[in-house]
């Protein structure tokens, strides 16, 4: 592989920008941007696998990251024994009955001859199964939610190391993706988009309202972190020593060190993923995927099972998004279902992929950095701009207040304009596909 100075230059410029943030604003901000950029880069990698390698349009990224985040709660939080005693059995039984109902309906569908009778039997199976499952499930979940509702009221997790949640989050997302893909792949390309939009809304609805699972909109906070918290770093003699030598405050040093710890972990994950993705892209499998993307009909004629290949890559890409979702929750230390917004978690990732260069893994990573940087910085820039514009106005005027408030919405506008400009004038993105 020849050295591509242009791309290295682009990344170096991005690094320089972050260093400038550190120098002029603060190290904490620079590291916060860096860490979320790394997570966004992983999400963008996942989307790029689906879009860049296979031309699949996934509008459910939010759902896959959220379900990955759920894994962090289910793996790392300590189990709430009291809740398990109160209704754990009933909840599990209810869920299993629900699954059994679906399986029974599928069996009926496959075994019986088509006709009105079959339809009626399936309907009956579903209604009866549903009611029976609810009979066990509803009281059990109510009992669970009644256990110490202020801080618990849910089943808790397994109490395992939080790093384990990352691969588990990937598996969760893969499962959801498999279900959606099975239904909507092989049909029109737009249908996958609608179906993924739907599943992501449903996943968020479940996370918000099933309080027995992860406390819903009450949020789960205090999720164990893979990196020592700043509070625990502060008393360490070497941290105080370092702070003294750098001339920073101890708390500042500790939070920077903690954030750096995350950066290191995320960089390792990202590096492994890029290595695997590049390897896959240049393998016979990757060539086949691109051949399918470029001419589906020809690939089908050559006997390739296009739908099956698409399902593979869709599940893989979504799993990467789930992994990123779990990483994000372990960075924040909390799961807040109310904060999952499609504009932020689905469409922004799309802007990253398109701006970066779809089909190119490095492009997706660079796009994630650039767009996340803009996302964070456009708001203060907008506020600054609005303050300049409104500086002549009366301080108390309504218009001035409105304009200042509206600065926070500038970012959506900027993202939209960026996306449209790239699509129009540079559709191959910052780092085009090779």
């Amino acid at each position: 592989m020849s050295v591509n100075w242009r791309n290295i230059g682009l990344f170096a410029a991005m690094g320089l920008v972050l260093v400038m943030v550190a120098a002029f604003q603060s190290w904490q901000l620079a590291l916060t941007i860096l860490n979320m950029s790394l997570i966004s880069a992983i999400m963008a990698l996942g989307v790029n696998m689906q879009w860049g390698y296979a031309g699949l349009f996934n509008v459910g990224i939010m759902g896959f990251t959220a379900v990955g985040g759920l894994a962090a709660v289910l793996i790392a939080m300590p189990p709430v024994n009291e809740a398990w005693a109160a209704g754990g059995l009933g909840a599990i039984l209810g869920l299993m009955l629900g699954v059994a109902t679906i399986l029974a309906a599928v069996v009926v569908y496959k075994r019986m001859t088509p006709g009105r009778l079959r339809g009626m039997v399936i309907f009956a199976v579903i209604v009866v199964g549903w009611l029976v499952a609810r009979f066990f499930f509803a009281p059990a979940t109510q009992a669970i939610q009644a256990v110490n509702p202020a801080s618990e009221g849910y089943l808790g997790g397994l109490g395992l190391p939080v790093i384990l949640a990352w691969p588990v989050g990937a598996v969760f997302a893969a499962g959801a993706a498999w279900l959606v893909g099975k239904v909507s792949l092989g049909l029109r390309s737009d249908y996958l988009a609608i179906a993924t939009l739907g599943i992501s809304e449903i996943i968020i609805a479940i996370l918000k309202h099933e309080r027995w699972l992860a406390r819903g909109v009450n949020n789960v906070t205090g999720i164990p972190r893979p990196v020592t918290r700043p509070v625990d770093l502060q008393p360490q003699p070497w941290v105080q020593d370092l702070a003294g030598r750098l001339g920073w405050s101890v708390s500042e040093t500790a939070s920077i060190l903690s954030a750096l710890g995350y950066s290191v972990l995320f960089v390792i994950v990202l590096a492994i993923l890029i290595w695997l993705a590049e390897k896959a892209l240049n393998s016979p499998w990757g060539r086949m995927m691109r051949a399918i993307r470029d001419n589906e009909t020809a690939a089908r004629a050559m006997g390739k099972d296009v739908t099956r290949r698409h399902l593979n890559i869709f599940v893989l890409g979504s799993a990467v998004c789930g992994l990123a979702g779990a990483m994000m929750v372990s960075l924040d230390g909390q799961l807040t279902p109310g904060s999952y917004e499609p504009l932020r978690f689905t469409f922004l990732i799309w802007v990253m992929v398109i701006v970066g260069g779809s089909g190119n893994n490095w492009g997706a990573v660079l796009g994630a950095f650039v767009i996340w940087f803009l996302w964070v910085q456009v708001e203060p820039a907008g506020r600054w701009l609005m303050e300049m514009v409104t500086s002549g106005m009366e301080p108390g005027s309504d218009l001035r207040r409105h304009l200042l408030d509206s600065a926070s919405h500038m970012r959506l506008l900027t993202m939209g304009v960026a996306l449209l400009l790239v699509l129009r004038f540079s559709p191959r993105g910052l780092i085009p596909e090779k």
Partner: protein
Amino acid sequence: MDPVSALVTLTNFVLIPGFAYGSQLALGALGITLIYSILRFSHFAHGDVMAFGTMVVIFTTWGFQAIGITGGGVIPTALLAIPVGIAVMIVYLLVADRLVYRFFRQVKAKPLTFVMASLGVMFVTNGLTRLFIGTSERRFEDGERFIFSVRDFREWTGLAEGLALRSSQAITIVTALLVMAALFWFLTRTKSGKSMRAYSDNEDLALLSGINPERVVTMTWMIVAGLVVIAGTLYGLDKGFRPINYFQLLLPMFAAAIVGGLGSPIGAIVGGFVVAFSEMGITYAWRRFFTHLMPEDMAPDSMLQLLPVDYKFAVTFAILVIVLIFRPTGIFRGKSI
């Protein structure tokens, strides 16, 4: 046993709201299906364009009220503001078309590129809406709140069960029916409408017949402007205006269009009602209905609600999945496979 009361409850809590919601979805889905059949892409900016158009109507309503033009306390002032909203949206959508979509038409871009571009338009529109009116809920209905209230109904009929018809619901249903009738008249009876159908049916032959595609596209955006402003205003009158709710209408609207058959106007309408009534029926607590129908000692003690209202998206999604599995072209055999 009291079947009349059962019917009254059902009408009050399922049929009337379902009809109103179904009309709103149908108008939205009609826009989606028109864009799909003429411009041949899934218009993801639809929800946000709807929000933007409604915002224009809200501002105009406030302006009208400020200068003393109102619906006379009978109809909401917003209805009078709709033409202004439509005019603004025609300009907005045509500018968007000239600046964004036309280029991709000229280079014959893939459908998904159009979808991406509509994402960009969605971002911009959403940003503009938030910039101008913010994200909080706005109510802008005025005039008479009820055609008849629960109390009126009880007094007339002497029944214990109540039934109310809100003005916004009645207006929604009537307006939607009028708009649909007008649209169908246009599509099947006028030369311009027929040329749109011809273009959607067979683009090349339409060109050969001398139909100007740019004119067809312009007409489509104009009609879509009318549909989104009317649908958005009706929805806002009925349920209040919040930009995020309009974005979330995207799923049920697309589901309605796909269930009916993408590209089929009649399918969009039927799909809208199918989605609306399914959502209503599955998230409604049927206890009261069945209490009236059964002997008193057999009254059900659970809520008989199949799913909590929070999961109405799941209902939409389930219908969508069923259609995709069993009849991917939709009820009315749209043009897609």
